[in-house]
């Protein structure tokens, strides 16, 4: 099949899923304390690992543009309104696909052990990034509680990604890179959206570490599982067990 035509169509269809999940609110999973986890970035990741960085960026653009329009025309909460700013809604989403694809490419070349370590580093790096940014701009060096929260989020990021990868490793090594790239893509989204919200002073920096921990992490895990299951079923990749669980 013609590569280009397939890329166009997959970008369009995945973009539609993202919009659909957002518009129907199916993609918002009520979490604790009124917050919600979202899965609208998963089509971006899946598009990127299946069809490359450009497709990923285009789907990200659709996702971002839709959250901008939704924030302006039919917001469902104060948080939606923040996304009317294109630097919050569009720019971070453009980066999800390319990052996921880069990590995926790297993941395919490396051995599992190496990936294991690298994924840990991604977790740390993203969180250190948020942490240092919040320190610089928020000026809460003295605030021991905040340092603690952000520290916990780093540790949790590493642990969860390692656990997830271990689980995946047991299932099938072929699926390894997909899981890692989904985590990377999802964390890109969390980190960039949160830092742009922080830069615009919509959320005090003090809160950002907490949000990254309580929303960003479960979102990353969710994105990884969903991506792996969809890709595995779509391309018929066998699990290590080579059979159903019945």
């Amino acid at each position, binding site marked *: 099949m013609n590569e280009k035509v397939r890329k166009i169509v997959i970008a369009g269809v995945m973009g539609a899923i993202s919009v659909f999940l957002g518009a129907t609110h199916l993609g918002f999973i009520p979490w604790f304390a009124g917050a919600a986890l979202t899965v609208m970035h998963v089509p971006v990741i899946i598009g990127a690992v299946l069809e490359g960085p450009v497709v990923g960026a285009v789907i990200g653009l659709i996702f971002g543009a839709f959250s901008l329009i939704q924030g302006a025309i039919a917001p469902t909460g104060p948080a939606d309104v923040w996304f009317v700013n294109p630097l919050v809604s569009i720019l971070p989403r453009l980066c999800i696909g390319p990052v996921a694809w880069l990590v995926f490419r790297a993941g395919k070349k490396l051995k599992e052990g190496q990936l294991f370590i690298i994924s840990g580093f991604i977790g740390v790096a993203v969180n250190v990034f948020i942490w240092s940014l919040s320190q610089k701009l928020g000026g809460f060096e003295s605030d021991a509680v905040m340092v603690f929260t952000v520290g916990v989020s780093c540790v949790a990021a590493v642990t969860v990604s390692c656990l997830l990868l271990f689980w995946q490793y047991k299932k099938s090594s072929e699926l390894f890179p997909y899981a890692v790239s989904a985590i990377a893509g999802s964390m890109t989204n969390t980190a960039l959206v949160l830092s742009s919200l922080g830069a615009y002073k919509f959320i005090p920096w003090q809160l950002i570490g907490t949000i990254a921990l309580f929303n960003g992490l479960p979102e990353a895990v969710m994105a990884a599982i969903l991506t792996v299951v969809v890709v595995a*079923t*779509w*391309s*018929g990749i*066998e*699990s290590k067990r080579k*059979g*159903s*669980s*019945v």
Partner: protein
Amino acid sequence: MRNHKDALLAIEGVYHSYLPGTPFERRSLDGVDLSVYEKETVGIIGPSGSGKTTLLFHCNGLLRPQRGTVRAFGIPIGEPGAELRDIRRRVGCVFQSPEDQVFERYVGDDIAFGPRNMGLAVETVRERVRGALATVGYPFSFKDRLTSRLSLGEKRRVAIAGVLAMDPRLLLLDEPTAGLDPEARRDLFEIIDRFKRRSGRAVLMVSHRMEEIAELSDRIYVLVRGRVVLQGTARGVFSRPDLLSENGLSLPAPAQTVRLLQERGIPVRSGACSVQEAADTIEELFRDRT
């Protein structure tokens, strides 16, 4: 006439319209009565857009009647608070092109989705999967096949097994043979047969293929623009070609053959629904001659 209370499914005067209260309102069911008894196969035929699928969705509570009553196993579905999950367990519904809904990586996991939702124990789930696979004609080892490697016909059988694994007593089928080749269609008839062999089971199926409805059904309802215009045995329904063609429906091929012979002045007895019956009635002619 059987006692109405014995019916597994009793639908009375059901109305339904899509998008009520908007300019796009469209009535799809206009006072339908229908009942299904134990051990029966009931067929619904009708032109497209006649409300067949909508009617089917009322049978296990996917749609609640806007007017009228639907009772499944004596439980009224229309009332708020009705235990719909319980009804859906007993009334299994196979949708149009059900293969689209197969979503697990392995056949076994997909079939186990329903039983697991019911909260059954691991062992029981395995037995359900084994039983369902056997009913659709596959060995238990088929559970480890990848769903992405199945053909359309195989996938459809797996999807049907997924519904059968819930162990329903009434099976709803919406256009079960659409898109299948003749051989796969035969296999499907056998599946329905195997399902019905167990005690107290009934089947309600929707199709626009006259031949299969004629061959499988004990009773037939003809649905046109949301109304039942004709009902009765296959023989009875297909002896009214005028009423059928008036509503854009044709006769099954065997009945049509007999009718064409009659029109050419050959005194064949009418009422044949299956190929076998048609052959028999034509043979009668020759036997009389000799």
